[in-house]
């Protein structure tokens, strides 16, 4: 068990591409940290550098206070779980799990005891004599985990370990991973491109984009106080709505109406180089059917009317899609997020607004409905830099803050 420190770690390839740029990260002993981001953001490269499978171009990597930049993977005492599971096909489950112990030259009895213990934890005891080819995906995944835990390494590194499982099993294994990590208390670095996994698993989440860290923090903090447009758009499902907003006479002109601004945001916008156009971000759950809002709440937000496009009833609440007119919000970050979601060439006409309303709402498709939204939960982003303008000392305060 150990802490892992990345000190300005960078990775560049001979052809000049920079995969990872000046990553600073301190992972405490026993902490569960998630690296998340779209494909090509450098998260796997970062993990491979921690494992020693890729050389570090510059910067320093310390495991348990010791510089390990030049150490071979086998001398770093870390265990890795791969997306492909990487089980040795010629060995049985038992042999697979015993492999690292055999390499460490432990005696037979100890090896057997440790393998049996790990197999019990992961409910693999009845499969110990099978070959990987005769296991299901979930079982293979558990063997891969077992091979990692038998050795009691300083840290676990997991590279999208659940991505090859089907949706249901993935949710199940998520809790297994989470419980296992808590039980063992081993420092864990976990790479995923799935923001749900990131939100549910980690003590802290590191969001990466283009080789650089965007924001580091506990999942809830990233969700509530995104530092920039990219983080705001990446975290959350369905994702945050983004609308074009023009600054006009101390207020904002948007497709949802004239949004008033508090003193603080107004001051930000008064400086000479302040953007004249902004992107307004608001999460689906910060909308509500105007009929269901009491007066006290109503004062904290504003209302608009829009035609209902589609209603998806989830039982506990309703996802309602509205068609709002007006210019589409555009920024490099948003395009990248759309590309990652595979929807770059499929945006639809106009700005479709996703809202999450109470189940009691009587909203129906085809209606024009009055909807309330919470001004305190609004985020405003500079389209040029992506910076969240409503963020003050790390906290998002909405549009009205004084």
């Amino acid at each position, binding site marked *: 068990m150990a802490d892992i420190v990345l000190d300005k770690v960078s990775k560049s390839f001979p052809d000049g591409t920079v995969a990872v740029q000046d990553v600073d990260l301190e992972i405490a002993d026993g902490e569960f940290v998630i690296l998340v981001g779209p494909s090509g953001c450098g998260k796997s490269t970062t993990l491979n550098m921690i*494992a020693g499978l890729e050389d570090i171009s510059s910067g320093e990597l310390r495991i348990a206070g010791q510089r390990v930049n030049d150490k071979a993977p086998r001398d770093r005492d870390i265990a890795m779980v791969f997306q492909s599971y*990487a089980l040795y096909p010629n060995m049985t489950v038992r042999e697979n799990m015993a492999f690292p112990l055999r390499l460490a030259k432990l005696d037979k009895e100890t090896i057997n005891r440790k393998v049996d213990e790990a197999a019990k934890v992961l409910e693999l005891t009845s499969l110990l004599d099978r070959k990987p080819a*005769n296991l299901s*995906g979930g079982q293979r995944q558990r063997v891969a985990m077992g091979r990692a835990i038998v050795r009691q390494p300083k840290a676990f590194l997991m590279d999208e370990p659940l991505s090859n499982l089907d949706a249901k099993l993935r949710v199940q294994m998520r809790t297994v991973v989470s419980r296992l990590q808590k039980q063992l208390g081993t420092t864990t670095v976990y790479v995923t491109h799935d923001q749900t996994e990131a939100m549910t698993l980690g003590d802290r989440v590191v969001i990466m984009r283009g080789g650089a860290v965007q924001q580091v923090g506990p999942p809830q903090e990233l969700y509530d106080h995104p530092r920039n447009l990219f983080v705001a758009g990446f975290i959350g499902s369905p994702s945050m709505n983004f609308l074009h907003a023009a600054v006009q006479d101390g207020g904002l002109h948007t497709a949802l109406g004239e949004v008033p601004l508090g003193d603080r945001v107004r001051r930000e916008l008064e400086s000479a180089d302040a953007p004249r156009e902004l992107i307004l971000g608001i999460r689906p759950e910060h909308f509500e059917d105007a009929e269901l809002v009491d007066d006290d709440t109503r004062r904290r937000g504003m209302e608009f009317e829009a035609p209902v496009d589609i209603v998806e009833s989830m039982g506990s609440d309703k996802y309602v899609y509205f068609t709002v007119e007006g210019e589409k919000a555009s920024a490099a970050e948003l395009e990248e997020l759309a590309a990652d979601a595979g929807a770059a060439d499929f945006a639809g006409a106009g700005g479709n607004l996703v809202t999450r309303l109470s189940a009691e709402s009587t909203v129906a498709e085809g209606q024009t409905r009055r909807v309330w939204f919470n001004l305190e939960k609004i985020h405003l982003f500079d389209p040029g830099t992506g910076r969240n303008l409503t963020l003050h000392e790390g906290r998002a305060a909405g549009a009205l803050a004084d």
Partner: protein
Amino acid sequence: MSADTVEKSTTPTVPTQRGGRRKPPLSENKKAERKLGLLLCAPAALVMILVTAYPIIYSVWLSLQRFDLRFPDQREFIGLDNYVTVLTNEFWWTAFGVTMLITVVTVAVELVLGMGLAIIMHRTLVGRGLVRTSALIPYGIVTVVAAFSWRYAWTPGTGYLANLFSDGAPLTERASSLAIIMLAEIWKTTPFMALLLMAGLALVPEDLLKAASTDGATAWQKFTKVMLPVMKPAILVALLFRTLDAFRVFDNIFVLTAGGNETSSVSMLAYNNLIRGLNLGIGSTMSVLIFITVAIIAFIFVKLFGTAAPGSDDSERR
């Protein structure tokens, strides 16, 4: 990763699959499909029968006769007498021993060298094409041409190798002749071995090696405990090909020693009896015996070592 690979790996033999398919009555569609399959196979099967099956059967027929072209009148059917003659003859067993020695030594050396070459070709990042092409040059040269260049190189007085390494005439002594024959064989076919092994190397998933690294394996342990087992099917195919090939060694011996000083292989012996000696009966008998030996070698590889036929999907890969 799917269920069908799981099934295949538990039942690696074909019969179960075929048996399972036979049980239910065939639908119209299946029947038509099967008919089409047979029709598509027919031309190839016909050609094979004409150019392969017929000569084999004919030589078996010849081997059962006393048939010497110098004494055509004495031709008669004599059953297995020719086989008794050959199998009790010391020249045959000497040639058989020589062939076996050449086969075992060359294939073993080629495996080691070929593996090294394959790894180099696989790992090379700069000038990959150049490295691969130059490694394959020996294989691209006609064997007889290469054999002549070896012969000249070992000819006393004019050959550079003879001048460098030997005082006498190495191709006139049995041990050194055999060594030179094997050297020529190895030089010639190692690239072929390397090529087959390189295909096997490509089957080793990168993740597996990474996993072994983090599990604490040294480079050598990664090679022996991870790469070799995963490559086993490819290695066996390469060995099978080369063993069958090496057992029929002919051209190098023909050019280098012409079988002198008891360096004849069984193929040389069969040639000498059949073509030079004009003894069709004895020559055919030897050919049939070579054919049987080769078949036995192939059988051992496929049945005992479980070599997969090239091209067939093997579940071991994952």
